[in-house]
């Protein structure tokens, strides 16, 4: 190997995104430590379990790219799941229930957008407030009880297959494709890059950013509504705390995926890899018998490392 080819090899390594390296390292470590990790059924498991997180992390990427944040997404997911379960139990119609879940998600998303644009609240406060409201509604609706008696058709959305592929993976794939188109092929996407990059220039160009921001937060709520279907299907029940904390995993996936909180540059494929990193980490720690509470600590550390790297990169 000549010095030149060595240098170009080094360049290639440097250009491989950190999140991909983390994913490979985690996979190797877990393969060594647990015999069941590197098996086809387990990989399928990881993908199925990661599908819900991807549904939430996709809009979160767009939101964080606009220098925003949505802390309410886990609570809205939970509320939508409760509404979905309550509707299907009351009416027996999965379609009606799904529409109800979508509407509640969309309403919260629009409310977030309106609070941030029209009322000019900082995103983390606006969504912290709606988090409280959504969580409060969960309690008011359920009195702390689970809703059970979900018909089997709903459960099929988590455990069923279509053309030999688990339905959650298909949903995640469709969602990823849709967000790819939204971010890279539509005006909304162009605004997302512009909003995070240089909001002042956008204002000076006479473009109203409010409506676009509302659309972006509405997408977050809508995806929480869709995610509620997977969440309810997985447990065949709705529980008032089931989705609490999902926003943490979603934010972590976006951060690990290399989207910056301050400069508004983001990368959808990075988020997909970030979701897989979180999924592999949780799955591997599960196999090693680490309780889920401590998995959160692992994710937290991973995010700190990711932000540290981001910080160092932005200084060079």
């Amino acid at each position, binding site marked *: 190997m000549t010095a030149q080819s060595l240098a170009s090899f080094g360049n290639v390594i440097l250009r491989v995104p950190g999140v991909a390296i983390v994913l490979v390292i985690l996979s190797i470590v877990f393969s060594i430590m647990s015999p069941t990790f590197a098996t086809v059924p387990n990989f399928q498991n990881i993908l199925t379990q990661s599908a819900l997180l991807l549904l939430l992390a996709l809009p979160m990427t767009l939101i964080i790219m606009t220098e925003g944040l949505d802390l309410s997404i886990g609570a809205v997911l939970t509320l939508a799941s409760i509404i979905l379960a309550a509707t299907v139990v009351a009416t027996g119609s999965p379609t009606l229930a799904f529409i109800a879940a979508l509407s509640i998600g969309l309403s919260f998303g629009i409310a977030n957008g309106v609070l941030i644009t029209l009322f000019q609240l900082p995103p983390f*406060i606006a969504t912290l*407030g709606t988090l*409280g409201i959504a*969580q409060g509604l969960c309690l008011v609706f359920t009195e702390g009880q689970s809703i059970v008696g979900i018909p089997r058709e709903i459960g099929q959305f988590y455990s069923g297959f279509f053309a030999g592929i688990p339905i959650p993976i298909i949903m995640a794939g469709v969602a990823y494709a849709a967000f790819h188109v939204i971010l890279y092929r539509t005006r909304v996407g162009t605004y997302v890059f512009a909003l995070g990059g240089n909001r002042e220039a956008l204002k000076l160009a006479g473009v109203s950013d409010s409506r676009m921001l509302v659309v972006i937060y509405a997408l977050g709520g809508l995806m929480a509504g869709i995610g509620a279907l997977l969440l309810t299907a997985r447990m065949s029940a709705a529980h008032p705390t089931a989705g609490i904390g999902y926003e943490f995993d979603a934010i972590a996936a976006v951060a690990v995926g290399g989207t910056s*909180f*301050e400069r508004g540059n983001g990368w959808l494929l990075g988020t997909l890899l970030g979701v897989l990193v979180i999924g592999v980490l949780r799955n591997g720690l599960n196999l090693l018998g680490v*309780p889920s*509470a*401590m998995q*959160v600590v692992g994710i937290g550390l991973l995010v700190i490392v990711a932000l540290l790297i981001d910080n160092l990169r932005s200084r060079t």
Partner: protein
Amino acid sequence: MSVTTDTPRTGLALPTEVSQALYRLVAALLICVVLSFLSDAFLTTSNLLNVLRQTALLFLMASGLTLVILTAGLDLSIGANIGFSACLAAAAIKNTGSPLVGFAVGVSVGAAVGFLNGLLVALLRIPSFIATYGMMWVAWGVTYWFMAGETIHGFPQSFRQLGSGYFLEIPIPIYIMFAFLLLGTIFAQRTVVGQQIYAIGANPMAARLSGIPIERRLILVYVVSGAMAGLASLIVLARINSAEGDIGEHLVLPAIAAVVIGGTSLFGGSGTVAGTLIGALILTLVVNGMNLLLINASWQPLVTGVIVLIAVWIDIRTRRLAD
């Protein structure tokens, strides 16, 4: 972003701040008048002392948070920090039998969590709401792992005095509240470090240019916020006589609400610790009123969420009018 210093900062509380505090006191009194008409149980000594005792707990958390918010930061980890500090303090008391050791453990664990927050915010430059939000989940995770589903209960009588004791027929936490009101006000208004904290929030660039050690001051406010959460955790622990991981979970939004209702701006640089006490009182009165009117407790997080949104919106409106 930070051209919002409508009043120059001096060592004295300014008339505008005094009048703002008065408006809020009047609001609190109005709530009292309304509640005394709505419920016979409101205007009784035991209920009023109860309101003040609850206010004390909220104020202790919110006073440390006030300093953080004065620097234009936020500490979302205080609720989880309360659970974490309380559980470690409880374990310390159980193992050593000494309330003093438990006290020291509670406050230092709280301060240590705050220190980590400070490092993340000041040195790694992670936005405070992200750093402390991550810390909230990390503290929660460690607490659940540590407790493994158990509760620790039954503490020595001497320790329990801290939360449920009386002196001259007034609950001890109320004395602690006024002590920290005095301490906090002197620290914020009358010390150089306190004034530097205002300066950092009002205009970080100017603060840096005038030689204020911003990183160290930021770490300090997060340590204080954590330590106050640790202290609050001890009072909760002494009051309910049992430690569980989630005892602080529902206190974050109310604490933020207390600070903002108290007139401290989320954009930093303006507000007072005394205002936060009035904010905590107003919020506690609302919750007390809901309890007296037999409104289901499930409604409280919802109402608090709405109150936070309204209070921040009012803050933003008044700021824009002032500019």
